[in-house]
Protein backbone atom coordinates (compact mmCIF):
# COMPACT_ATOMS: atom_id res chain seq x y z
CA UNK A 1 0.00 0.00 0.00
CA UNK A 2 2.85 2.28 0.92
CA UNK A 3 4.50 1.51 -2.38
CA UNK A 4 1.26 2.33 -4.14
CA UNK A 5 0.98 5.66 -2.30
CA UNK A 6 4.57 6.55 -3.11
CA UNK A 7 3.94 5.57 -6.70
CA UNK A 8 0.89 7.79 -6.79
CA UNK A 9 2.86 10.68 -5.31
CA UNK A 10 5.62 10.14 -7.85
CA UNK A 11 3.08 10.03 -10.65
CA UNK A 12 1.43 13.22 -9.43
CA UNK A 13 4.83 14.88 -9.19
CA UNK A 14 5.63 13.83 -12.71
CA UNK A 15 2.32 15.15 -13.96
CA UNK A 16 2.93 18.41 -12.14
CA UNK A 17 6.39 18.66 -13.66
CA UNK A 18 5.09 18.13 -17.16
CA UNK A 19 1.91 20.17 -16.80
CA UNK A 20 2.13 23.77 -17.93
CA UNK A 21 2.73 25.06 -14.42
CA UNK A 22 2.88 28.65 -15.51
CA UNK A 23 -0.21 28.34 -17.64
CA UNK A 24 -2.50 31.27 -17.09
CA UNK A 25 -6.12 32.19 -17.25
CA UNK A 26 -7.49 33.42 -20.52
CA UNK A 27 -10.40 35.80 -21.04
CA UNK A 28 -12.22 35.77 -24.35
CA UNK A 29 -15.35 37.61 -25.43
CA UNK A 30 -18.24 35.33 -26.34
CA UNK A 31 -21.58 35.73 -28.09
CA UNK A 32 -24.01 37.08 -27.23
CA UNK A 33 -22.86 38.85 -24.05
CA UNK A 34 -20.25 36.80 -22.24
CA UNK A 35 -16.69 36.82 -21.08
CA UNK A 36 -15.40 33.28 -21.21
CA UNK A 37 -12.79 32.35 -18.60
CA UNK A 38 -10.51 29.62 -19.90
CA UNK A 39 -7.97 27.67 -17.89
CA UNK A 40 -4.99 27.23 -20.19
CA UNK A 41 -3.88 24.12 -18.33
CA UNK A 42 -7.29 22.47 -18.68
CA UNK A 43 -7.84 23.83 -22.20
CA UNK A 44 -11.48 24.47 -21.39
CA UNK A 45 -13.94 27.13 -20.32
CA UNK A 46 -14.23 27.21 -16.55
CA UNK A 47 -16.52 30.20 -16.06
CA UNK A 48 -18.78 32.51 -17.99
CA UNK A 49 -19.31 36.09 -16.91
CA UNK A 50 -22.37 37.87 -18.22
CA UNK A 51 -22.06 41.44 -19.43
CA UNK A 52 -25.27 43.40 -18.88
CA UNK A 53 -24.46 46.01 -21.52
CA UNK A 54 -24.12 43.53 -24.35
CA UNK A 55 -21.61 42.12 -26.76
CA UNK A 56 -17.95 42.62 -25.85
CA UNK A 57 -15.81 44.32 -28.49
CA UNK A 58 -12.61 44.97 -26.57
CA UNK A 59 -10.85 44.07 -23.36
CA UNK A 60 -8.02 45.76 -21.57
CA UNK A 61 -6.16 44.99 -18.40
CA UNK A 62 -5.28 47.82 -16.03
CA UNK A 63 -1.58 48.52 -15.56
CA UNK A 64 -1.57 46.77 -12.19
CA UNK A 65 -3.46 43.80 -13.60
CA UNK A 66 -6.25 44.03 -11.04
CA UNK A 67 -9.08 45.27 -13.23
CA UNK A 68 -10.27 44.20 -16.65
CA UNK A 69 -12.06 46.82 -18.74
CA UNK A 70 -14.43 45.59 -21.42
CA UNK A 71 -16.35 47.72 -23.90
CA UNK A 72 -19.54 46.51 -25.51
CA UNK A 73 -21.19 47.45 -28.77
CA UNK A 74 -24.84 46.64 -28.10
CA UNK A 75 -25.47 49.63 -25.88
CA UNK A 76 -22.07 51.33 -26.08
CA UNK A 77 -21.22 50.07 -22.64
CA UNK A 78 -18.21 49.89 -20.39
CA UNK A 79 -17.84 47.10 -17.86
CA UNK A 80 -15.12 46.78 -15.24
CA UNK A 81 -14.32 43.39 -13.76
CA UNK A 82 -12.29 42.68 -10.65
CA UNK A 83 -9.79 40.10 -11.87
CA UNK A 84 -9.33 38.42 -8.49
CA UNK A 85 -13.01 37.87 -7.70
CA UNK A 86 -14.26 37.77 -11.32
CA UNK A 87 -17.07 40.12 -10.29
CA UNK A 88 -18.30 43.02 -12.39
CA UNK A 89 -17.70 46.07 -10.21
CA UNK A 90 -18.90 48.75 -12.62
CA UNK A 91 -21.26 48.51 -15.57
CA UNK A 92 -23.03 51.18 -17.53
CA UNK A 93 -24.12 52.25 -20.99
CA UNK A 94 -23.33 55.59 -22.58
CA UNK A 95 -26.37 55.43 -24.85
CA UNK A 96 -29.58 57.31 -24.16
CA UNK A 97 -32.82 57.09 -26.15
CA UNK A 98 -31.65 59.96 -28.35
CA UNK A 99 -27.88 59.66 -28.23
CA UNK A 100 -25.56 56.85 -29.23
CA UNK A 101 -21.83 56.41 -29.31
CA UNK A 102 -19.60 54.29 -31.52
CA UNK A 103 -16.24 53.29 -30.13
CA UNK A 104 -14.04 50.24 -29.84
CA UNK A 105 -11.83 49.98 -26.83
CA UNK A 106 -10.19 52.60 -24.73
CA UNK A 107 -7.64 53.08 -22.01
CA UNK A 108 -8.15 53.79 -18.29
CA UNK A 109 -5.99 56.25 -16.44
CA UNK A 110 -3.92 55.13 -13.48
CA UNK A 111 -6.50 56.30 -10.96
CA UNK A 112 -9.19 54.16 -12.56
CA UNK A 113 -11.53 57.16 -12.57
CA UNK A 114 -11.37 58.13 -16.24
CA UNK A 115 -11.52 56.10 -19.41
CA UNK A 116 -10.27 57.55 -22.71
CA UNK A 117 -12.00 56.53 -25.92
CA UNK A 118 -11.92 57.45 -29.59
CA UNK A 119 -15.54 57.76 -30.61
CA UNK A 120 -18.30 59.18 -32.74
CA UNK A 121 -21.51 60.52 -31.21
CA UNK A 122 -24.86 60.16 -32.98
CA UNK A 123 -27.75 62.38 -31.93
CA UNK A 124 -31.28 61.68 -33.00
CA UNK A 125 -33.04 64.96 -33.71
CA UNK A 126 -36.66 65.52 -34.68
CA UNK A 127 -36.09 64.93 -38.37
CA UNK A 128 -32.39 64.12 -38.70
CA UNK A 129 -29.52 62.20 -37.24
CA UNK A 130 -26.52 64.35 -36.39
CA UNK A 131 -23.22 62.49 -36.49
CA UNK A 132 -20.28 64.13 -34.80
CA UNK A 133 -16.75 64.24 -36.06
CA UNK A 134 -14.36 61.67 -34.72
CA UNK A 135 -13.54 62.76 -31.18
CA UNK A 136 -11.33 61.97 -28.27
CA UNK A 137 -13.62 61.52 -25.29
CA UNK A 138 -13.07 61.16 -21.58
CA UNK A 139 -15.58 58.98 -19.73
CA UNK A 140 -15.94 59.44 -15.99
CA UNK A 141 -16.35 55.92 -14.63
CA UNK A 142 -17.93 57.23 -11.42
CA UNK A 143 -20.55 59.55 -12.89
CA UNK A 144 -20.83 57.16 -15.88
CA UNK A 145 -20.90 59.92 -18.46
CA UNK A 146 -18.73 61.56 -21.08
CA UNK A 147 -17.18 64.55 -19.36
CA UNK A 148 -14.83 65.93 -21.99
CA UNK A 149 -14.62 65.78 -25.78
CA UNK A 150 -12.45 67.23 -28.52
CA UNK A 151 -12.60 66.76 -32.27
CA UNK A 152 -9.60 65.21 -33.93
CA UNK A 153 -7.83 67.58 -36.26
CA UNK A 154 -9.23 67.80 -39.78
CA UNK A 155 -6.32 65.84 -41.25
CA UNK A 156 -6.91 63.05 -38.73
CA UNK A 157 -10.61 62.65 -39.34
CA UNK A 158 -10.05 59.68 -41.64
CA UNK A 159 -8.40 57.98 -38.66
CA UNK A 160 -10.41 54.96 -37.64
CA UNK A 161 -12.15 54.88 -34.29
CA UNK A 162 -10.72 51.40 -34.01
CA UNK A 163 -7.32 52.92 -33.38
CA UNK A 164 -5.69 51.64 -30.22
CA UNK A 165 -4.93 54.00 -27.37
CA UNK A 166 -2.10 54.16 -24.86
CA UNK A 167 -1.65 56.53 -21.95
CA UNK A 168 1.66 57.69 -20.53
CA UNK A 169 2.32 56.67 -16.91
CA UNK A 170 2.02 60.28 -15.74
CA UNK A 171 -1.36 60.53 -17.46
CA UNK A 172 -0.40 63.65 -19.36
CA UNK A 173 -0.11 62.19 -22.85
CA UNK A 174 -2.47 60.01 -24.84
CA UNK A 175 -1.28 58.09 -27.90
CA UNK A 176 -3.55 56.86 -30.68
CA UNK A 177 -2.17 54.26 -33.08
CA UNK A 178 -3.36 53.40 -36.55
CA UNK A 179 -2.38 54.96 -39.86
CA UNK A 180 0.07 57.04 -37.85
CA UNK A 181 0.70 57.82 -34.23
CA UNK A 182 -1.18 60.80 -32.85
CA UNK A 183 0.12 62.38 -29.66
CA UNK A 184 -2.48 64.14 -27.55
CA UNK A 185 -2.27 66.35 -24.48
CA UNK A 186 -4.82 64.93 -22.03
CA UNK A 187 -5.39 68.27 -20.31
CA UNK A 188 -7.20 69.73 -23.31
CA UNK A 189 -7.30 66.72 -25.67
CA UNK A 190 -5.44 68.71 -28.31
CA UNK A 191 -3.13 66.97 -30.74
CA UNK A 192 0.43 68.08 -30.15
CA UNK A 193 2.44 65.80 -32.39
CA UNK A 194 2.36 63.08 -35.06
CA UNK A 195 4.72 60.23 -35.80
CA UNK A 196 4.78 58.87 -39.32
CA UNK A 197 4.78 55.27 -38.21
CA UNK A 198 1.85 53.06 -39.00
CA UNK A 199 0.55 49.99 -37.25
CA UNK A 200 0.71 47.29 -39.92
CA UNK A 201 -2.17 45.30 -38.56
CA UNK A 202 -4.21 42.87 -40.54
CA UNK A 203 -7.50 44.62 -41.37
CA UNK A 204 -9.55 41.90 -39.76
CA UNK A 205 -7.66 42.15 -36.52
CA UNK A 206 -7.96 44.55 -33.70
CA UNK A 207 -5.33 45.99 -31.46
CA UNK A 208 -6.64 44.44 -28.35
CA UNK A 209 -3.58 42.57 -27.29
CA UNK A 210 -1.75 45.60 -25.96
CA UNK A 211 -2.75 44.83 -22.43
CA UNK A 212 -1.67 41.22 -22.79
CA UNK A 213 1.29 40.07 -24.79
CA UNK A 214 2.96 43.34 -25.46
CA UNK A 215 2.30 44.53 -21.93
CA UNK A 216 4.59 41.83 -20.65
CA UNK A 217 7.51 43.22 -22.56
CA UNK A 218 6.88 46.74 -21.52
CA UNK A 219 9.16 48.24 -19.02
CA UNK A 220 7.02 50.83 -17.25
CA UNK A 221 6.27 53.64 -19.61
CA UNK A 222 7.53 51.92 -22.72
CA UNK A 223 5.39 50.64 -25.56
CA UNK A 224 6.88 48.14 -27.96
CA UNK A 225 5.26 46.84 -31.10
CA UNK A 226 5.68 46.20 -34.78
CA UNK A 227 5.39 49.31 -36.89
CA UNK A 228 5.68 50.08 -40.54
CA UNK A 229 7.28 52.95 -42.35
CA UNK A 230 7.89 53.85 -45.99
CA UNK A 231 10.46 55.89 -47.80
CA UNK A 232 9.24 59.13 -49.39
CA UNK A 233 10.43 58.39 -52.95
CA UNK A 234 9.41 54.96 -54.14
CA UNK A 235 7.21 54.20 -51.13
CA UNK A 236 8.73 50.87 -50.27
CA UNK A 237 7.26 49.77 -47.00
CA UNK A 238 9.50 48.43 -44.27
CA UNK A 239 8.44 46.91 -40.99
CA UNK A 240 10.35 46.77 -37.77
CA UNK A 241 10.22 47.00 -34.02
CA UNK A 242 9.56 50.42 -32.55
CA UNK A 243 10.04 51.25 -28.91
CA UNK A 244 8.12 54.29 -27.78
CA UNK A 245 8.85 56.01 -24.49
CA UNK A 246 5.43 57.17 -23.42
CA UNK A 247 6.69 59.84 -21.03
CA UNK A 248 9.32 61.52 -23.19
CA UNK A 249 7.57 60.84 -26.54
CA UNK A 250 10.85 59.54 -27.96
CA UNK A 251 10.89 56.45 -30.12
CA UNK A 252 13.45 54.22 -31.75
CA UNK A 253 12.68 52.19 -34.85
CA UNK A 254 14.72 49.16 -35.84
CA UNK A 255 13.85 48.01 -39.37
CA UNK A 256 13.67 44.26 -39.96
CA UNK A 257 12.63 43.80 -43.56
CA UNK A 258 10.18 44.58 -46.35
CA UNK A 259 6.57 44.56 -45.27
CA UNK A 260 4.26 41.74 -46.25
CA UNK A 261 0.74 42.61 -47.29
CA UNK A 262 -0.40 42.54 -43.69
CA UNK A 263 1.00 41.83 -40.26
CA UNK A 264 -0.69 41.12 -36.99
CA UNK A 265 0.46 42.80 -33.82
CA UNK A 266 3.52 41.66 -31.93
CA UNK A 267 3.16 38.97 -29.29
CA UNK A 268 6.04 38.55 -26.90
CA UNK A 269 7.27 35.64 -24.79
CA UNK A 270 7.28 36.25 -21.01
CA UNK A 271 11.07 36.55 -20.94
CA UNK A 272 10.84 39.32 -23.52
CA UNK A 273 13.34 37.67 -25.83
CA UNK A 274 11.12 36.21 -28.53
CA UNK A 275 8.48 38.05 -30.52
CA UNK A 276 5.87 36.51 -32.79
CA UNK A 277 3.63 37.87 -35.46
CA UNK A 278 1.46 36.59 -38.29
CA UNK A 279 2.27 37.70 -41.83
CA UNK A 280 -0.42 37.55 -44.48
CA UNK A 281 0.51 37.61 -48.15
CA UNK A 282 -1.71 37.35 -51.17
CA UNK A 283 -5.46 37.58 -51.12
CA UNK A 284 -8.54 35.68 -52.02
CA UNK A 285 -7.51 32.39 -53.64
CA UNK A 286 -3.77 32.86 -53.12
CA UNK A 287 -3.70 33.94 -49.51
CA UNK A 288 -0.89 32.56 -47.36
CA UNK A 289 -0.51 32.97 -43.61
CA UNK A 290 2.73 32.47 -41.75
CA UNK A 291 4.00 32.71 -38.20
CA UNK A 292 7.17 34.78 -37.96
CA UNK A 293 9.45 34.57 -34.96
CA UNK A 294 11.88 37.33 -33.98
CA UNK A 295 14.79 37.69 -31.66
CA UNK A 296 13.87 40.92 -29.92
CA UNK A 297 17.38 41.53 -28.60
CA UNK A 298 18.79 41.74 -32.11
CA UNK A 299 15.49 42.60 -33.87
CA UNK A 300 16.03 39.85 -36.42
CA UNK A 301 13.59 37.39 -37.93
CA UNK A 302 14.58 33.86 -36.96
CA UNK A 303 12.01 31.46 -38.25
CA UNK A 304 8.70 31.15 -40.04
CA UNK A 305 6.08 28.52 -40.73
CA UNK A 306 2.89 28.48 -42.76
CA UNK A 307 -0.46 27.65 -41.21
CA UNK A 308 -3.96 27.39 -42.69
CA UNK A 309 -5.47 30.85 -43.09
CA UNK A 310 -8.82 31.75 -41.77
CA UNK A 311 -10.55 34.55 -43.57
CA UNK A 312 -10.85 36.45 -40.30
CA UNK A 313 -8.81 35.60 -37.27
CA UNK A 314 -6.92 36.94 -34.30
CA UNK A 315 -3.53 36.04 -32.94
CA UNK A 316 -2.39 35.55 -29.35
CA UNK A 317 0.22 33.91 -27.16
CA UNK A 318 -0.21 31.82 -24.03
CA UNK A 319 0.68 33.06 -20.58
CA UNK A 320 3.80 30.90 -20.43
CA UNK A 321 4.85 31.71 -23.98
CA UNK A 322 4.77 28.06 -25.05
CA UNK A 323 1.71 28.24 -27.28
CA UNK A 324 0.49 30.50 -30.05
CA UNK A 325 -3.24 30.93 -30.56
CA UNK A 326 -5.28 31.50 -33.71
CA UNK A 327 -8.92 32.17 -32.97
CA UNK A 328 -11.98 34.14 -34.05
CA UNK A 329 -14.85 33.49 -36.47
CA UNK A 330 -15.99 30.43 -34.63
CA UNK A 331 -15.94 28.68 -31.30
CA UNK A 332 -12.49 27.17 -31.27
CA UNK A 333 -8.91 28.17 -30.55
CA UNK A 334 -6.22 26.61 -32.71
CA UNK A 335 -3.11 26.01 -30.61
CA UNK A 336 0.39 25.97 -32.12
CA UNK A 337 3.70 25.20 -30.48
CA UNK A 338 5.69 28.41 -30.13
CA UNK A 339 9.02 26.62 -30.65
CA UNK A 340 8.21 24.42 -33.60
CA UNK A 341 5.36 26.61 -34.92
CA UNK A 342 3.42 23.41 -35.59
CA UNK A 343 -0.21 22.67 -34.63
CA UNK A 344 -0.75 21.09 -31.21
CA UNK A 345 -4.44 21.13 -30.39
CA UNK A 346 -7.80 22.67 -31.06
CA UNK A 347 -9.84 23.85 -28.07
CA UNK A 348 -13.60 23.97 -28.33
CA UNK A 349 -15.26 26.78 -26.40
CA UNK A 350 -18.80 27.27 -25.20
CA UNK A 351 -19.52 30.39 -27.25
CA UNK A 352 -18.48 31.88 -30.55
CA UNK A 353 -15.73 34.40 -29.93
CA UNK A 354 -16.31 38.08 -30.53
CA UNK A 355 -13.82 40.66 -31.79
CA UNK A 356 -12.79 41.58 -28.27
CA UNK A 357 -9.45 39.84 -28.45
CA UNK A 358 -7.74 37.90 -25.73
CA UNK A 359 -6.40 38.83 -22.31
CA UNK A 360 -4.29 36.38 -20.35
CA UNK A 361 -3.32 36.71 -16.71
CA UNK A 362 -0.82 34.51 -14.84
Amino acid at each position, binding site marked *: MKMLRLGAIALLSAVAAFSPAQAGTMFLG*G*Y*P*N*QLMVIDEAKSSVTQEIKLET*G*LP*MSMRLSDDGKLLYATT*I*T*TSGIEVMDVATRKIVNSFSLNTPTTRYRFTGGVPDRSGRYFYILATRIDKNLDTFRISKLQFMVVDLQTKAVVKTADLDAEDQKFSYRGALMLSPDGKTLYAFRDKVIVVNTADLKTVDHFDLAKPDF*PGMQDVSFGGGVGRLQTPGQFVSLFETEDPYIHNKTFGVARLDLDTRQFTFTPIGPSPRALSGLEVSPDGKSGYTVAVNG*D*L*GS*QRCEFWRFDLDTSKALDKAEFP*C*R*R*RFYFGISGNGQNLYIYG*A*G*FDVAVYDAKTLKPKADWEL*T*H*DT*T*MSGMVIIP
Partner: protein
Amino acid sequence: MKHLRPINKKAERIDQAASMTEEDVVALQQGPDKPKPHVPMGCTLSFSPGWEVDAGGGTAGLCQPVERDIYDCYVTCFWPVQVADHVNYSPDWAANCAIATKDWRKLDLVFP
Protein backbone atom coordinates in the same frame (compact mmCIF):
# COMPACT_ATOMS: atom_id res chain seq x y z
CA MET B 1 -22.00 65.39 -77.96
CA LYS B 2 -18.92 64.02 -79.70
CA HIS B 3 -18.82 66.93 -82.07
CA LEU B 4 -18.49 69.34 -79.17
CA ARG B 5 -15.05 70.10 -77.76
CA PRO B 6 -14.39 71.98 -74.52
CA ILE B 7 -12.49 75.19 -75.03
CA ASN B 8 -11.95 76.34 -71.46
CA LYS B 9 -11.01 74.67 -68.16
CA LYS B 10 -14.48 74.61 -66.70
CA ALA B 11 -15.86 72.94 -69.80
CA GLU B 12 -13.01 70.44 -69.63
CA ARG B 13 -13.94 69.55 -66.08
CA ILE B 14 -17.57 69.12 -67.07
CA ASP B 15 -16.51 66.93 -69.96
CA GLN B 16 -14.35 64.79 -67.66
CA ALA B 17 -17.13 64.47 -65.12
CA ALA B 18 -19.57 63.46 -67.83
CA SER B 19 -17.17 60.87 -69.25
CA MET B 20 -16.76 59.29 -65.81
CA THR B 21 -20.46 58.56 -65.68
CA GLU B 22 -20.26 56.57 -68.89
CA GLU B 23 -18.51 53.68 -67.15
CA ASP B 24 -20.53 50.73 -66.10
CA VAL B 25 -21.86 50.79 -62.60
CA VAL B 26 -21.61 47.35 -61.11
CA ALA B 27 -23.30 46.13 -57.99
CA LEU B 28 -21.05 46.25 -54.94
CA GLN B 29 -18.37 48.11 -56.88
CA GLN B 30 -16.10 49.89 -54.44
CA GLY B 31 -14.67 52.57 -56.71
CA PRO B 32 -13.40 53.16 -60.22
CA ASP B 33 -9.72 52.77 -59.32
CA LYS B 34 -9.97 49.41 -57.59
CA PRO B 35 -11.24 46.71 -59.88
CA LYS B 36 -12.44 43.80 -57.83
CA PRO B 37 -14.35 40.65 -58.50
CA HIS B 38 -17.95 41.35 -59.27
CA VAL B 39 -19.98 39.26 -56.92
CA PRO B 40 -23.58 38.31 -57.49
CA MET B 41 -26.16 40.08 -55.44
CA GLY B 42 -28.07 38.26 -52.78
CA CYS B 43 -25.13 36.47 -51.32
CA THR B 44 -27.19 34.38 -49.04
CA LEU B 45 -30.84 34.65 -48.30
CA SER B 46 -30.57 31.38 -46.46
CA PHE B 47 -27.72 29.57 -44.76
CA SER B 48 -26.56 28.05 -48.03
CA PRO B 49 -22.82 27.67 -48.22
CA GLY B 50 -21.30 28.69 -51.48
CA TRP B 51 -22.82 32.10 -52.01
CA GLU B 52 -21.06 34.04 -49.30
CA VAL B 53 -18.22 36.37 -50.19
CA ASP B 54 -15.67 38.25 -48.20
CA ALA B 55 -14.99 41.96 -48.10
CA GLY B 56 -12.82 41.73 -51.22
CA GLY B 57 -15.44 39.87 -53.18
CA GLY B 58 -13.54 36.61 -52.88
CA THR B 59 -14.95 33.21 -52.21
CA ALA B 60 -11.72 31.49 -51.21
CA GLY B 61 -10.61 30.95 -47.67
CA LEU B 62 -13.96 31.71 -46.19
CA CYS B 63 -14.98 30.43 -42.86
CA GLN B 64 -16.92 27.31 -43.54
CA PRO B 65 -19.67 26.57 -42.99
CA VAL B 66 -21.31 29.94 -43.36
CA GLU B 67 -22.74 29.80 -39.84
CA ARG B 68 -19.21 29.84 -38.52
CA ASP B 69 -18.79 33.54 -39.13
CA ILE B 70 -22.29 34.79 -39.64
CA TYR B 71 -21.98 36.86 -36.48
CA ASP B 72 -19.37 39.08 -38.03
CA CYS B 73 -21.97 40.30 -40.46
CA TYR B 74 -24.50 40.59 -37.68
CA VAL B 75 -22.27 42.92 -35.69
CA THR B 76 -20.22 44.79 -38.24
CA CYS B 77 -22.05 44.18 -41.52
CA PHE B 78 -18.79 42.92 -42.94
CA TRP B 79 -20.39 40.71 -45.54
CA PRO B 80 -23.13 41.90 -47.89
CA VAL B 81 -25.38 39.28 -46.48
CA GLN B 82 -28.93 39.48 -45.30
CA VAL B 83 -28.78 39.00 -41.59
CA ALA B 84 -30.21 41.01 -38.77
CA ASP B 85 -28.57 44.23 -37.62
CA HIS B 86 -27.28 44.01 -34.08
CA VAL B 87 -26.58 47.65 -33.43
CA ASN B 88 -29.80 49.26 -34.56
CA TYR B 89 -32.76 46.93 -34.85
CA SER B 90 -32.19 43.40 -33.64
CA PRO B 91 -29.92 43.33 -30.60
CA ASP B 92 -31.50 40.09 -29.39
CA TRP B 93 -31.36 38.16 -32.66
CA ALA B 94 -28.64 35.85 -31.35
CA ALA B 95 -29.50 36.02 -27.66
CA ASN B 96 -30.20 32.28 -27.45
CA CYS B 97 -27.50 31.14 -29.81
CA ALA B 98 -24.07 30.78 -28.26
CA ILE B 99 -22.47 28.92 -31.17
CA ALA B 100 -23.96 29.68 -34.56
CA THR B 101 -22.62 26.54 -36.21
CA LYS B 102 -24.39 24.32 -33.69
CA ASP B 103 -27.32 26.41 -32.50
CA TRP B 104 -28.35 28.34 -35.61
CA ARG B 105 -31.90 27.08 -35.25
CA LYS B 106 -32.15 29.20 -32.12
CA LEU B 107 -31.54 32.41 -33.99
CA ASP B 108 -34.56 34.65 -33.69
CA LEU B 109 -36.90 35.48 -36.55
CA VAL B 110 -36.87 39.07 -37.73
CA PHE B 111 -39.86 40.59 -39.47
CA PRO B 112 -39.16 43.86 -41.25
